[in-house]
């Protein structure tokens, strides 16, 4: 048995009974843990993990984080929080809710609670594991078994909430590798509209953040979900977003990855009823030896469902990225439309991208497209800019910025756009000069 599994077993034995919701979900946690242990961590022998090795993770020992010092937590919030965001905010440091950093405005029709708190109150258990496919996403099982806290968000029928709900997850690594497992449950009732931002950041030594989000879009609702990942270079980040989208509803997902040593991000959207629509928008920057793996899966289970997906990556150093975009069209799902694209820019000779679309279509009246590109900057554009007097580095930086900006432009929140544009610029050569361009 690997060190990782050994340590997780010890943690479950020690802490399992003290986790929130023992009365309501205790047995479920136990079952999830046993099933997780029985199958172990995925290996590269499995198709879904072919390009992403967890060998180094296997060798690490993990422990749940200890109590957080509020003063240092507040200092971390100061450092990492996105400025200029209005609306409700929940802040977690090493998985623990930090009440003085939270902002809980009363908005009619919007219910936000810490999931740990909800479970202690006897609520929330019914929403857990309702959307996620635990057989497919084994890390979600680990999350169910050992999560400590997270958020439960519900927006009532026909309620349109204009301000985004901001969930900030800060992970501060120390000498022991910490296991941080946020769990987020979101439900938009019929006709409701909501935006949720999940922001992952932090610093310090190796930590494993394993986060799971479950989304229920009831009919005619709209949810916009942001996952912004800017964790430390030593961190491992494993995420899954699992959604069920009902009739005439829209789910928009933005997935932005700037940090982490090893990142695996699964998005699984079930377009369950007629008229359901999903938009997946992704951007990843990889550098040095980082590894970022995006797996998306969109199930068109009903007629006239639509999806659009555009992921872009900028790779540098000896980094590696994986994109696997799966689209399944069920037998009765006629007149669906699904478009997917994945474009990658390789800035060094030593980086690697493995990109693979997977279309599995059982209906006959469908429109599906997919395309992937892997390449360098457009030489003609580069020459054009240089012929106007811009030096080669600035021109390259500018074109790389423009490539990434195509994704950032689609974010509906100005405070996020400007922060992420600045982050992109900070990653480029000659960033001082490029600041003028935003």
């Amino acid at each position, binding site marked *: 048995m690997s060190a990782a599994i050994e340590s997780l077993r010890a943690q479950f034995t020690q802490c399992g009974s003290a986790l929130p919701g023992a009365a309501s979900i205790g047995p479920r946690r136990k079952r999830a843990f046993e099933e997780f242990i029985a199958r172990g961590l995925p290996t590269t022998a499995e198709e879904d993990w072919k390009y992403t090795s967890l060998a180094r993770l296997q060798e690490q020992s993990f422990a749940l984080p200890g109590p957080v010092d509020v003063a240092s937590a507040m200092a971390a919030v100061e450092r990492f929080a996105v400025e200029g965001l209005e609306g409700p905010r929940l802040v977690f440091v090493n998985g623990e809710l930090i009440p003085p950093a939270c902002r809980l405005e009363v908005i009619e029709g919007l219910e936000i609670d810490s999931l740990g708190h909800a479970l202690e109150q006897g609520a929330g258990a019914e929403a857990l594991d309702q959307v996620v496919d635990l057989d497919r996403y084994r890390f979600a099982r680990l999350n169910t078994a050992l999560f400590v806290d997270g958020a439960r968000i519900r927006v009532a029928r026909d309620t349109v909430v204009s301000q985004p709900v901001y969930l900030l997850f800060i992970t501060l690594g120390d000498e022991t590798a910490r296991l941080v497992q946020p769990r987020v449950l979101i439900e938009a009732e019929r006709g409701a509209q909501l935006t949720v931002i999940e922001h992952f950041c932090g610093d310090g030594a190796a930590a494993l953040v394993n986060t799971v989000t479950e989304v229920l879009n009831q009919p005619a609702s709209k949810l916009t979900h942001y996952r912004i990942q800017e964790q430390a270079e030593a961190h491992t980040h494993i995420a899954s977003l699992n959604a069920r989208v009902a009739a005439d509803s829209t789910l928009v997902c933005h997935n932005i990855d700037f940090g982490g040593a090893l990142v695996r991000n699964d998005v699984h959207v079930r377009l369950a009823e007629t008229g359901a629509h999903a938009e997946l928008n992704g951007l990843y920057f990889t550098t040095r030896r980082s590894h970022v793996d995006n797996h998306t899966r969109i199930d068109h289970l009903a007629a006239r469902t639509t999806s659009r997906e555009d992921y872009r990556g900028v790779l540098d150093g000896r980094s590696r990225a994986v994109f696997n975009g799966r689209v399944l069209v069920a037998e009765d799902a006629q007149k669906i439309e699904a478009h997917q694209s994945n474009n990658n820019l390789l800035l060094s000779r030593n980086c690697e991208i493995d990109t693979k679309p997977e279309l599995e279509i059982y209906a006959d009246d469908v429109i599906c497209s997919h395309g992937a590109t892997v390449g360098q900057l*457009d*030489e*003609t*554009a580069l*020459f*054009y*800019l*240089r*012929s*106007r*007097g*811009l*030096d*080669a580095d*600035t*021109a390259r930086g*500018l*074109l790389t*910025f*423009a*490539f990434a*900006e*195509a994704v950032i*432009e689609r974010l509906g929140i100005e405070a996020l756009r400007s922060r992420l544009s600045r982050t992109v610029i900070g990653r480029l050569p000659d960033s001082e*000069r490029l600041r*003028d*361009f935003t």
Partner: protein
Amino acid sequence: MLKISDLHASVDGTEILKGLNLEIRAGEVHAIMGPNGSGKSTLAQVLAGHDSYEVTAGSVVYRGMDLLALAPEVRAREGVFLAFQYPVEIPGVNNVYMLKAALNAMRKHRGEPELDSYAFMKLIREKMKLMEMDASFLNRGVNEGFSGGEKKRNEILQMAVLEPSLALLDETDSGLDIDALKVVAEGVNTLRSPQRAIVMVTHYQRLLDYIVPDQVHVLSGGRIVKSGDRTLALELEERGYDWLAEAVGA
């Protein structure tokens, strides 16, 4: 201003320019005409510094400098401007910022203070008026979604802002309707000055009705085969290029 001697250039191993000689003085406007494939665009690209073209022999002296030894951006900062035949669309890079960066790169190179946003906007609005360009242009990406005519106007706008010493216009008239052609020609004529040289590369003489050249050269088979005043252009219009190619055996 510019002296090209025995210039040979090839692309992918195929020689396109085969011993080209040309001398242009400040204040002059030259037209280079010739059939398709004669090397007109190659000449423009080589002078601007495109690295797909390999110069295998010859020299180009620009204002006392060995032009071929300079990087494209340095040529630009020294006052060489190429108006592209096919201006490149660069979504996500704003027109105005690109142009401001270009102008300030030049000013810095010349040891002049950089223009701030206010001064720059004032300048560009004035030039846009000259080129009859719509204000919406300011917020768009470089040439993004522009029609053929808008792209050519944008090239001349850039030229008007950057005020080069040597302007190379590569097929600037192609794809323009007559109204757009007049606007573009007006823009170019405004820039005529005793300190500036302009080289127009063109297949048709139509442009020369609006921008009257001092000299006309015919490029054929990678060399200048005939030079003359503007009546040469009219003769070419009438007789085509074939008689010349036959006459010089090119």
